[in-house]
């Protein structure tokens, strides 16, 4: 029986992994591959951690002393690429989804999912500035956007859904609001969700998964 690796990149076992899921913005990861002779496929990559797949792209690869270190970013890596300035005008209001999907298409990303809570128009005018495509998201949505594991930008509010799976709070730094959590279901721990434990409770703000050769740990920053 073949056991799937706990952490892998395109099916190749990782010796180390650091995956950061921010409350807003794009998640990213640093991965260490044990075998630097295996070629990395071009284009989209699939990062897997405890059964959850993350669609990502390579920012940087460096091989050293038989090991390969890879920096990965969620999605197609397009949101960091520049878009030209563009003038939008419509008496009926410039549709929000048009501005967002326009930027996405220009840099090869999937169109953001515009939640009904987001205003459908941006006004009779919208002037997109030249610069990183992500500036369109920051300026149009402020902190109201995040990327899901499939690499798609979401604009729905982070829901305070309770985490019901079992977990242990191993260590707590109360002042900075950091909790070290042991769990068999790390995929449940996403920003916005709430947890209620015997010793500590809170709302997840930022998650950092760290996989090392002999252990896995997850650090949660609480709101």
């Amino acid at each position, binding site marked *: 029986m073949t056991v799937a690796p706990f952490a892998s990149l395109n099916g190749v076992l990782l010796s180390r992994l650091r995956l950061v899921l921010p409350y807003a*913005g794009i998640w990213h990861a640093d991965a260490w591959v044990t075998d630097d002779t295996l070629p990395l496929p071009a284009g989209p990559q699939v990062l897997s951690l405890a059964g959850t797949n993350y669609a990502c792209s390579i920012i940087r690869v460096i091989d050293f002393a038989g090991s390969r270190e890879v920096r990965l970013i969620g999605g197609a890596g397009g949101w*960091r690429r520049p878009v030209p*300035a*563009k*003038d939008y*005008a419509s008496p009926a209001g*410039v549709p929000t989804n048009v501005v967002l999907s326009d930027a996405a298409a220009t840099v090869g990303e999937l169109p953001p999912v515009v939640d009904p809570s987001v205003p459908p128009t*941006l*006004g*009779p*005018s*919208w*002037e*997109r*500035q*030249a*610069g*990183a495509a*992500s*500036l369109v998201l*920051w*300026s*149009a949505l402020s902190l109201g956007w995040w990327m899901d594991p499939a690499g798609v930008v979401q604009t729905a509010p982070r829901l305070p859904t309770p985490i019901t799976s079992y977990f242990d709070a191993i260590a707590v730094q109360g002042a900075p609001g950091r909790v070290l959590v042991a769990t068999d279901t790390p995929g449940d721990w996403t920003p916005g969700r709430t947890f209620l434990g015997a010793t500590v409770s809170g709302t997840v703000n930022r998650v950092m998964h760290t996989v090392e050769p002999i252990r896995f740990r997850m650090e949660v920053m609480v709101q």
Partner: protein
Amino acid sequence: MTVPATDRLQESLRAILAALLPTLAYYAVWEYRVLNVSPPLGPPAPVKLGVPILVDCVALDAATAATLPPTLSAKVLQPGPSGLVAIPAIGSVVLVGFANGSPGKPYVHSLDPNVAPINTPFSQFATLLHGSTDPATQAAAAFLQAELGL
């Protein structure tokens, strides 16, 4: 390996600042050159209060075009506190700003100090005075036009 055009650390810091201050560019005032005004209210047509004047314009220089759209269409000419506007001449330079630093609220708020507007509240007032049959009013209109070079 290609040599990066910028310092990596500076570039990372620039990206962080840009994400924290994504609308910084919209707090500046930008120079554009007028291509068209709508409606085209040359004298003696009076400018109606409450009727928006829309301006099409093109970026004055490469620095502006590198940041904002090279051409802007149908941007509102902001009236002054009196509610009146002066119509900029085609080819003159106007200043474009963004209310509240919002990319969705561009407006033209200043005209070219070196190019007389083609229709100002004064010229409209003088035109109205000229239409009067009262000689004193007509004399006042002539004086106004002569003094202001209308």
